[in-house]
C-alpha cells in the first residue's frame, strides 16, 4: 500500500498545473478504492467505516455523515429507486472550497460518488452544481465520460454487478438550493423551497424515494477513508478535530485562499500563517469563521481551534470553515448590512418571518448606515435575532442570517450607537 497522504483531498491539486485526467488520476493511485471495494466489500461495511471515521458534513451543517447514511432504510427494506445526490451548489458568501475540489480533481469527486452510492445501494446519482461553476461542470462531464469509457460507471461496473449513472445538473442560481431539501425540489423541477422535515430525505427524498444528499468535500473524503481506514482518517486531525478540512480565508489578508489543514487548526494559524496575515495598514477586528451565516469571533479569540465543538462553545459555528475577515477600515454595520441584503434577496419567500423579516432587517441596517437610524432600531434588531431564530422559521436560512447580526450587535454595540447618535457613518 502506498504511504497514506496527509493532505488527501488536495493531493492531486497543484497550483498552475493542469488537473488530472483519468490516466493521471489512476497513476496517482486513483480509483484504487473502487477497484478494491465494488463487489468485494459489503455496502453496509462501508457505511460502518464512514461512521467510525467520524466524518462530519462539510457543507455547513456538520451532521455526522455515517449517521446520516445509517438513517436510510436498506434496499431490502425499501425496494425501488434510491438516489445519491451531491450538493455542489456552493453559494455561501466567502466560500470557495468545493470549487477547488471540483475543478482541481474531478475524478476524486467521481470516485467518492461511486463508493458512496455503492454503500447506499443507489444506482442513480445527481450532481447539483452551482450554475456559475462553468469550468467545474465541464470538467465533471469530461470526467464522467472518461470514467464511463473506463468501465467505472454504467452497467455492471468492473464486473461487480453494480450499476451507477451520474448526471450533472446545473442550478439556476438560488442560494436556497444549497439547502438539501430545496435542492431536491429544484432537481424535481419545482420551486426551490425547503421541505418540512420529517420526512427526512433518507425516507422520502427525490420523488419520494430514499435519498442521501452530501456536500462535495464530504464525499471527496470517502475514497481515502475506504482506502486507508477510519483510524487513519481520525489521526489526521489536531486539537480534537478529525481528518482534514479545507479551510479558507478571504478579506484583507496577504494571501487569501483555501488550504487543506488538519481539522482543529486554530484561526490564528490559518490567518497569520497560511493566509499571510493582514495586509499592511489593516488590522483585524473580527472574523466570520465559517461563511456568511456564522457569528463573529472578535480579534481576541483567534486562538481557538476550528472544530464544530469549539466554535459552538464560542457562540458561533464552524459552518463551511471558510473565514471572512473584517478589518478596521470597513464599517461593521455596512458589512452586516451587506450580508443581510444577500440573505433578504436569497430568501425563497416561503415562510413569513424570513420573507418579510429579513428585508426589514436589511432596511434598518442600511438606514443606520445612512445616518437615518432611530434609537428603537436597536431593540427591533435585537428582537429580530430571536424571532428569526432557529425553530421560528421554516429552514436555517434566517437563523444563519441572524448569526452575524446577533454577534455584531454584541461586539459592535458602540458603533451601532455612534451611527445613530451622530447620524453618520465614521467610515464614509
Amino acid at each position, binding site marked *: 500500500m502506498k504511504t497514506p497522504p496527509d493532505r488527501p483531498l488536495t493531493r492531486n491539486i497543484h497550483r498552475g498545473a493542469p488537473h488530472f485526467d483519468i490516466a493521471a488520476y489512476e497513476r496517482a493511485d486513483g480509483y484504487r478504492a473502487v477497484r478494491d471495494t465494488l463487489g468485494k466489500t459489503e455496502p453496509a461495511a462501508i457505511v460502518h467505516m464512514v461512521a467510525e471515521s467520524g466524518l462530519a458534513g462539510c457543507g455547513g451543517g456538520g451532521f455526522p455523515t455515517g449517521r446520516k447514511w445509517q438513517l436510510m432504510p436498506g434496499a431490502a427494506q*425499501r425496494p*425501488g*429507486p434510491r438516489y445519491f445526490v451531491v450538493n455542489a451548489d456552493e453559494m455561501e458568501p466567502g466560500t470557495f472550497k468545493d470549487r477547488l475540489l471540483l475543478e482541481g480533481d474531478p475524478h476524486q469527486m467521481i470516485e467518492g460518488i461511486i463508493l458512496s452510492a455503492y454503500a447506499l445501494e443507489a444506482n442513480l446519482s445527481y450532481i447539483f452544481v452551482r450554475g456559475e461553476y462553468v469550468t467545474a461542470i465541464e470538467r465533471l462531464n469530461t470526467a464522467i465520460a472518461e470514467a464511463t469509457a473506463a468501465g467505472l460507471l454504467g452497467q455492471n461496473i468492473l464486473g461487480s454487478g453494480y450499476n451507477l449513472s451520474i448526471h450533472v445538473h446545473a442550478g439556476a442560481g*438560488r442560494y436556497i438550493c444549497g439547502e438539501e431539501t430545496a435542492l431536491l425540489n429544484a432537481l424535481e423541477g419545482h*420551486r426551490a423551497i425547503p*421541505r*418540512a422535515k*420529517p*420526512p427526512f430525505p433518507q*425516507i*422520502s427524498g427525490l*420523488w*419520494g*424515494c430514499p435519498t442521501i444528499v452530501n456536500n462535495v468535500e464530504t464525499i471527496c473524503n470517502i475514497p481515502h477513508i475506504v482506502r486507508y481506514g477510519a483510524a487513519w482518517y481520525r489521526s489526521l486531525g489536531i486539537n480534537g478535530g478529525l481528518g482534514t478540512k479545507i479551510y479558507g480565508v478571504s478579506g484583507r489578508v496577504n494571501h487569501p485562499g483555501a488550504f487543506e489543514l488538519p481539522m482543529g487548526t486554530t484561526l490564528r494559524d490559518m490567518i497569520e500563517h497560511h493566509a499571510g496575515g493582514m495586509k499592511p495598514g489593516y488590522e483585524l477586528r473580527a472574523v466570520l469563521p465559517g461563511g456568511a451565516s456564522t457569528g463573529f469571533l472578535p480579534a481576541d479569540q483567534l486562538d481557538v481551534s476550528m472544530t464544530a465543538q469549539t466554535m459552538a462553545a464560542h457562540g458561533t459555528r464552524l459552518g463551511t470553515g471558510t473565514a471572512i475577515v473584517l478589518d478596521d477600515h470597513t464599517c461593521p454595520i455596512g458589512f452586516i448590512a451587506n450580508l443581510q441584503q444577500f440573505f*433578504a*434577496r*436569497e*430568501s*425563497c*419567500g*416561503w*415562510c*413569513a*418571518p424570513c*420573507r*418579510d*423579516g*429579513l*428585508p*426589514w432587517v436589511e*432596511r434598518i441596517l442600511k*438606514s443606520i448606515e445612512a445616518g437615518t437610524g*432611530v434609537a*428603537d432600531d436597536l431593540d*427591533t434588531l435585537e*428582537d429580530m435575532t430571536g*424571532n428569526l431564530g432557529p*425553530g*421560528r*422559521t*421554516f429552514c436555517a436560512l434566517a437563523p444563519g442570517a441572524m448569526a452575524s447580526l446577533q454577534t455584531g450587535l454584541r461586539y459592535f454595540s458602540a458603533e451601532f450607537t455612534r451611527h445613530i447618535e451622530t447620524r453618520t457613518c465614521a467610515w464614509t
Partner: protein
Amino acid sequence: MDLNHLHLDVDRTIITAQPGQTVLEACLSAQLDLPYFCWHPALGAVGACRQCAVKLFNGPEDHTGQIVMACMTPATSGMRLSITDPATAQFRDRVIEFVLTNHPHDCPVCDVGGECHLQDMTALVKHTQRRYRFTKRTHLNQDLGPFIRHEMNRCIGCYRCVRFYRDYAGGDDFGVFGANRNIYFGRATPGTLESEFAGNLVEVCPTGVFVDKPFATRFRRKWDMRATPSICPHCAVGCNITVQEREGEFRRVVNRHNAALNGYFLCDRGRFGIDFIRSPARLRRSTQRDAQGPGTPVAIPAATAALAELLRTNNVIGIGSPRASLEANAALRLLVGPAHFYAGVSDHDADIIATAITILRDAAVPIATPADAAQSDAVLILGEDPSDIAPILALSLRQSAQRPTSEALAIRQIPAWNDSAARRSAFGSPTPLIIATPMSTRLDDCATTCHRIAPAALLTLAAAIKTQLEHPSPADPTAIAATLRRASAPVIVVGGDSALMRAAANIVTTLRRKGIAARLSILLPEANSLGLGLFGAPPLSAALAAIQTGTAPHVIVLENDLHRRCETGPLEGTFHRIASLSVLDCIETPTTATADLAIAVGSFADADGTTVNQEGRAQRSFKAIFSTDDAPPSWHVLRNAGIAAGRLDATAWATHRELIDAMAANIPDLAACRALWPHTHDNIMQRPATLPHRYSSRTAVNAAANVREPPPFTNPDSPLGPTMEGLMPRSGLMPHVWSPGWNSVQANLKFPSAAEPGVMLFPTSACIPTELPLPHPPPPAPGILALPIRRVFGSDELSNLAQAVASRVGGPILRVNPADAATHGLSAGTRVDCTIGTTTVRRAIALDPAMAAGVAGLTIGVQGEPGLPLPGSLTITAIHPGEPS
C-alpha cells in the same frame, strides 16, 4: 379513559383530540383560538406562515419548552402545550407584524373588510402598533377575467391560492412567481383564469387579493346582507350555497360547507351563474294574448284567473320540468292529474333518469357522494366526462387520483395532513383513476389509464369487466377488473347511456358480492332530473303524441323551454293543434314568447323549493330574495288557479308543509321529503335570523320614500326568520356562519355540524344490490355517431344568462379525431353544417387525437338552438372553409 381520543394539556386545560389530528386541528376543535394562515381544512398543512406557533414542553419537568408550529405537530396523548406562553405569543405577534409590513391599510375600502381572516387574526393576537417605517413592496395587478379581480398588494404570501389552484384543483395557468418578498401570485401573462374552480380563490384567500368581480359592482358588507341557505340550481350535484341579498337585490353566492357534497368549494358555474336572476332575460311581467296579439301585460290575479279558466275545461295537460322544484311539479301534477302530467324532457334524458331510479331504488346500488369519491382508492369513469357535467364531483375525483395510497404514506410514516410530503409520496404509486370514454376528458391529466372507446365497445368493456371480476382470467387486456378487485372502496362513475349505466351498476353489484365496498356515481343532466323522474311521468314525446291523438288540449308548461328539449319540427307540428299554451317561468324563452299566457314566477331564489340531486339526496332551498314586487312561486300560482277552478278546496296547500304532505301521499318515493325542516316556529323570534345582528340602516333604507320602518317581509313557508331578530343557531339550519372574532368564511371551523345533510331518498342498505339485465345493443347507425358535449360554461340554460358566465362561453364545436377529419376534408377551425335528425346546426371543427374513430362530439345547449336528438347519426351537409374560426 377513552382510547379513541387523545388528551392534551393546553395551558393546564385538558382538551381531547382525534388520532391523526394535528395540534392546530385539536386546538381549533376544542374552540381554542389559535391564529393561522397557510393551513386550510381541505388543503392540509405545510408550515409556511409560522402563525400557529405554540410552546411544546418535553415532559412535566421541562419549564423552557420549545416553539413548534401547531399545524405541523401531530397531536399525541399526554402532550403538554402552551398557547399563552409570553415568548410564543410575542412570536405570533411578530408574524402578523411581518406579513403586515407590505399589506396596505385599505381595510375601509377593501372588499373583504369585515370578513377578512387577516383582520380576524390581527385582532386575535392583539397586534396594534406598526413599527415598520420603510416603503412597502407593490405589484401591478392582472386582468384575471370576468370572475376575479386581482389586488396583489394585499397579498400576505400564505400560498393557499396556488396550493388550491394547482395542487388541489389541477389548474396550470396560475402560479407563484419571483422570490423573497417579491413573490407574485398570478398568471404568466394577464388573462382569464381557465380553471372552472377559480372563484374559490375568493374564499381561499385569507384577505382581499382575489375579489368576486360581479359582486364588487353591487357590493355590500357581509353584515349588511341577508343570507339564506340554498341549493345550486345549475347541475345535478346540488351543491350547498348561501345566497346573499340586500334591498331586494341579489348580491352574491358563497359556499355553504357540506362535508358530503361540496365541502369548502363551488364551481364557477354555481358561484357566478346564479347571477341569472338579475339577467335582462328574466320574465318580469306576465302577458296574455288578446285581440291585439300576444304580449299584453296582465297582472298576476288576472293571469291566475285565466289559468283557472283553462283548468275548468278539464282538457288540460301539464308539462313539468327538471329545473323546477318538486313542489312546483307536484302542484301541476296534482292539478292536471297524473294521467295528464308529462315530464318535459327528451326521450334520451327520460331513459337515463328512469334507469338511474331503477339502479338506486329497485336494485339498491350504493351511491357515492363526492366525499366518497374523494376518499375512494380506485375510480373507474365510464362514458362521460364529469368535469363539465358535475364539476364538484370531478374535483372530488381529482383528490382521489392525486392522493397517495395508504401504503405509500405508511412506508414513509407521513401523516395525511402533511400536504407537500404526502403529495410527493404519490409519485410512482398513484391511486388508480381509469377513464374509459369516447373522447378525452379534463381529468385525463391525473388519470392512470385512459381508454378511448366508442359507445358500443364501451358497453362490451363494462360487461367484460364484470365477467373478469366473476371469473378472473390471465387474459385481462385492460386489467381494470384486477385494479378494482385490489381496491377496498372503489367508485364507478357513469353517465350518458342507460345500458352503460346498468352495466356499471352490475360491476358495483359484483364487487359488493366479493365484499368490496364499491359505490356508483351516476351523472344526471339537471338539478332536479331525479326528482322529476320520481313522479314517473312520460317524456315530452308522449305529450306530443297525446296532443296529436286527442282533442286539442290546453297545455300548461312549467318552467321549461320546450324548444331546448326537442327538434323544432315535431314541436311546431304538434303545437299548432293545441287549444292554448300557458307557460309559468322566471325567464324569457322561445316557449314563453309563443305562449298565449306567460306567467312570470319566481326563480329558485324567490321561492322555497326542494330538489333531488343525482345521489337521490333531497335538499331544500329557501326564499332568499325579498322585495315588494316579488314574483310568486309557481306552486302559489297553481294553487290559486286550482282553488279558483274548484279543483282544490279553498284551504288546500295553505302552507308549504301541506303541499309536501300532499305530494308525499301521491308519490311514496318522495315521502322522506317531509323530514326536511318540518318545524316552522310561529314566533319569528324563535327562527334562525337571516339578517345579521349587525345589519345596518334598516330604518333608513327607505327613508327617502317613507320615514316609517316597513313591516318585515313574511314567509310562512320558511323556517327562517326574515329579520335580524331571531336565533343565531350553532348547528343545523344556519343562515350565517359567524363566530365572535371569526368574521370570515373560516368561521366554518367553529361549527363542525353546520352542514345540512338533506335526506337520502334511497339510503344505502346492507343488502347485496340486485343485478340488472342488459338490453340488447341497438344496431349501429350509419354515418358518424354524434355524442353530446356538455360544457361547464355554455350548456346550462340558466347560468348562460349570467353576464359573467356568458362571457366565458366558447364557440360551438364539433370534436372529431384527426383521421376522421382528414377523411371528410376538415381541418381545425373549419365551420361545418351538421345535420342530426331534421335539424342542421353550425359548428367549428376541433381536433381531439384521442377521440374514438367514427364518433364525434357536439356541444349542446347553445342558446337559441333547438334540442338535438343526441346521441344520433350525424351528417356533415356543408363545409365553410373560408370562414374564420
